[in-house]
């Protein structure tokens, strides 16, 4: 039952072959079995999930069910959920219960999806390994000595290990794509502004974007149908019409031009990853696509630009966590300054503090021009690189990350090595274009993700390309052998 895709589950629910209650219970059982070792959930909502499942069964029987009625999913724990703890994996918010619902979770609930719980993540979405969580690190189900990637590591693991049909994630510099790649699942970071950020606890507002994580492109399309669209509550959400992301999935790829940027195949790329990507690209050739070598010359600059812009915004976004109105407040503050400094020093981990300090520094008087403004100029160059490239080709492909999942603890003392993990993903966020990660083979017995990057608001095209690949390959159907890991 747990290996089904959304389309067939929806069918079986409508045909009454299964009930949502049974389906939901089976996922809850799986969570009980695996979560103690994998730690992909921070909060499991058994009671409310079962109650919602019963209602979904009634709605299905009555013929009033939404398109995702009865499908059990989970949300990254930075989407605010009304009455349900939303922690951002931080001590700061470890007891925070929002009195409101994020647009993404509200839309999925409206579509009928059942929320199983809230998934683990790097604190405030800052990290690439999910080792930085107040609620403990998350383990990769393919090999529990390895990280699942981050920051949406919990969401990736929940899907990979069969603890949810699909999950939501957010991607600020690769946080959907990289864990999807490390865990062998499919993830989509939509165009900036395609999905509302309302109720999503911000890391870096101009880069953050929510998206689906699932077993297949088709499943991602199901979620996109629910969550995409303009939201008057988010001024940066785009007033661009959405489309039915399921209808174009079967378009043939004949005549598709794929660009391969040489910068994505240079130094630092693991051989096994490179081989898997080349193999995948030749699969697309078989499907009728043409390959073209291209260049994204400013790729290298994306790391310094990102690590100025994202921390700058974060330093301001995280100012509201001051111990005054909600969140962690230190004991017995001597005065106001003591309350601020101790509450924040105690509530935020070192990684979060580091990024706040970097951002504060970059925005300071006398440094602003040299750091923030220069980073914004680089950002424009990077965007222009993509615009130029996408005038020549339909989509761009390359690896999601230079390596497969790495060992837990192996990079925690080397922040630069950790930041280099994001070399292939950051530039997409800086440009604001959509990109996917799809399973494309294995290296060192660990999944390799192929990245597909497209022009603004071409999510339907990316899903179509990914779906066609998945119709002709079975990488996305591979699942970890949990007997060994768990």
């Amino acid at each position, binding site marked *: 039952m747990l290996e089904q895709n959304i389309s067939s589950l929806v069918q079986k629910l409508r045909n009454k072959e299964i009930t949502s209650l049974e389906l939901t219970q089976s996922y809850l059982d799986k969570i009980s079995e695996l979560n103690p070792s994998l730690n992909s959930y921070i909060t499991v909502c058994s009671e409310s999930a079962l109650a919602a499942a019963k209602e979904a069964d009634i709605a299905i029987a009555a013929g009033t069910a939404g398109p995702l009625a009865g499908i059990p999913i989970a949300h990254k724990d930075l989407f605010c959920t009304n009455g349900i703890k939303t922690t951002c994996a931080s001590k700061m918010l470890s007891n925070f219960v929002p009195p*409101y619902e994020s647009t993404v979770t509200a839309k999925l609930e409206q579509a009928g999806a059942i929320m199983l719980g809230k998934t683990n993540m790097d604190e405030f979405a800052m990290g690439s390994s999910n080792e930085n969580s107040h609620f403990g690190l998350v383990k990769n189900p393919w090999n529990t000595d390895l990280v699942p990637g981050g920051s949406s590591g919990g969401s990736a693991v929940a899907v990979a290990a069969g603890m949810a049909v699909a999950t939501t994630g957010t991607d600020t510099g690769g946080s959907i794509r990289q864990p999807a790649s490390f865990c062998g699942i499919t993830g989509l970071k939509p165009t900036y502004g395609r999905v509302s950020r*309302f109720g999503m606890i911000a890391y870096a*507002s101009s880069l953050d974007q929510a998206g689906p994580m699932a077993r297949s492109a088709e499943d991602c399309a199901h979620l996109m149908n629910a969550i995409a669209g303009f939201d*008057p509550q988010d001024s*940066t959400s785009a007033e661009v019409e959405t489309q039915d992301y399921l209808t174009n999935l079967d378009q043939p790829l004949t005549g598709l031009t794929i660009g391969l940027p040489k910068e994505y195949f240079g130094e630092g790329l693991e051989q096994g990853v490179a081989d898997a990507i080349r193999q995948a690209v030749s699969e697309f050739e078989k499907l009728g696509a043409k390959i073209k070598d291209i260049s994204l010359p400013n790729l290298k600059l994306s790391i310094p630009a990102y690590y100025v812009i994202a921390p700058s915004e974060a330093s*301001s976004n995280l100012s509201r966590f*001051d111990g*005054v109105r909600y969140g962690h407040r230190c004991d017995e503050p001597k005065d106001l300054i003591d309350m601020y400094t101790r509450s924040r020093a105690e509530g935020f981990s070192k990684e979060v503090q580091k990024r706040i300090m970097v951002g504060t520094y970059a925005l300071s008087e006398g440094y602003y021009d040299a750091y923030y403004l220069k980073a914004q100029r680089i950002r424009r160059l990077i965007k222009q690189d993509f615009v130029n490239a996408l005038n020549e080709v339909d989509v761009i492909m390359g690896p999601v990350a230079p390596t497969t999942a790495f060992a837990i603890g192996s990079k925690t003392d080397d922040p630069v090595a950790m930041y280099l993990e994001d070399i292939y993903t950051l530039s997409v966020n800086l440009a604001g274009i959509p990109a996917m990660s799809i399973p494309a083979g294995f290296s060192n017995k660990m999944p390799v993700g192929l990245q597909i990057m497209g022009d603004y608001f071409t999510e339907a095209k990316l899903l179509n390309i990914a779906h066609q690949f998945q119709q002709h390959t079975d990488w996305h159907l591979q699942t970890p052998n949990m007997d060994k890991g768990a």
Partner: protein
Amino acid sequence: MSWEIVIGLEIHAQLSTKSKLFSGAAVGFGAEANTQTTLVDLGMPGALPVFNKEALRMAVMFGHAVNAEIGMTSVFARKNYFYPDLPKGYQTSQMDDPIVGIGHLDVTLEDGTTKRVGITRAHLEEDAGKSLHEDFHGMSGIDLNRSSTPLLEIVSEPDIRSAKEAVAYVKMIHSIVTYLGICDGNMAEGSMRCDVNISLRPKGQEEFGTRTEIKNVNSFRFIEKAIHTEVERQADILEDGGKITQETRLYDPEKDETRSMRSKEDANDYRYFPCPDLLPVVLTQEYVDQIKETLPELPTQKAARFISDYSLSEYDAGVLSSSRPMADYFETVTQTANDAKLSANWVMGELSKLLNQNQIEIANSPVDAKNLGQLLARIKDNTINGKTAKDILLDMWNGEGSADEIIDKKGLKQVTDTAAIETMINDIIAANSAQVEQFRAAEPDKQKKMMGFFMGQIMKASQGKANPGIVTPILMKLLKG
């Protein structure tokens, strides 16, 4: 040494939008703490601002009113600092690209001359909440009702040279924003607040001296007093060979002194940067032009019209156009009474006296403009004289009815029957023969003075109802014999 005073002003005008600058919460004064708030005003995680287009319209109106460049692309920026009543840890404001750019204002001074004051910029920003320190037993309370209330911060050039000029400028801004209907101008409730930047320099010196900023002065009178006090303080220091410290000061009206709040060294580095939650505000020329067409008549235009249409003096026109309620009131009175000079005198005289005594705004006057106009019409048609009219106005003020009702009720209709007046005068002449003889013996210019005695007697006898215009020639004729 002779010092020149250099003043620049920052005025925060609270825009009278229905809802807040970045949320749908209601704006209002005096509501129960934290009842006028949404997730956005509370700075909840994941809450996002949505810009209130009404505030934009108002800011553009103001820009037109001060002959300013309108920022066709304006950008909201975050001003970062920690304070308990600043829920997000930053204030959303505008820095590099304000909605209103360079403009100017021609300010009419008391002596009738005009002074041009440059406007550096005006930008939109949100207000913070309030910290409450009473009734919390050693702790502080936070009220976020004011959080995200829209403000227009109007920054002047350092063109102002005296306290009087400063007050005239602030009054002018006050009348413009209230004329435009974009701010209620209520300084006591903080709808308009003023930061005054003051420095001194030796007369003739071009370079500015070191300035201090006096924060949050909230009345015209305090602005004037605060400037005098601060100028004196700075002059004392400079004359003793001392140096002015650049700092922010507070004015204490009770002690009439300014005192240091924080020095430049303690100043925050606000780390301004463009707010990534809000898109740049891009305007079309069409939108900007449309708003220009909706601009109402402004105080200076109104004053000019009062002079040309009603032949008022420049001074009267200036006073009567100083606020929109005053100007509207005056125009209604004039239209009813059909005598502009008489109306101007009464509105600025008797009515203003009553309003001031009772500290009532003209808009809330118990005697409305139409009723005052009818009272004046009765002077014009000789039903009553001016003195009686003053008494009637008091009755009207106290709610005893309209002018005509009071005239009827109290029988105050003026005596205009010449025969009756002649009889009355003859009686008085007969009863005051000594004074009549004195009068007849006096020089003509002395006689004029003595007329007052007889007029007084006649008014007494007629209970004020005799028409002086009719009495005077008859009295003169009969007195002379």
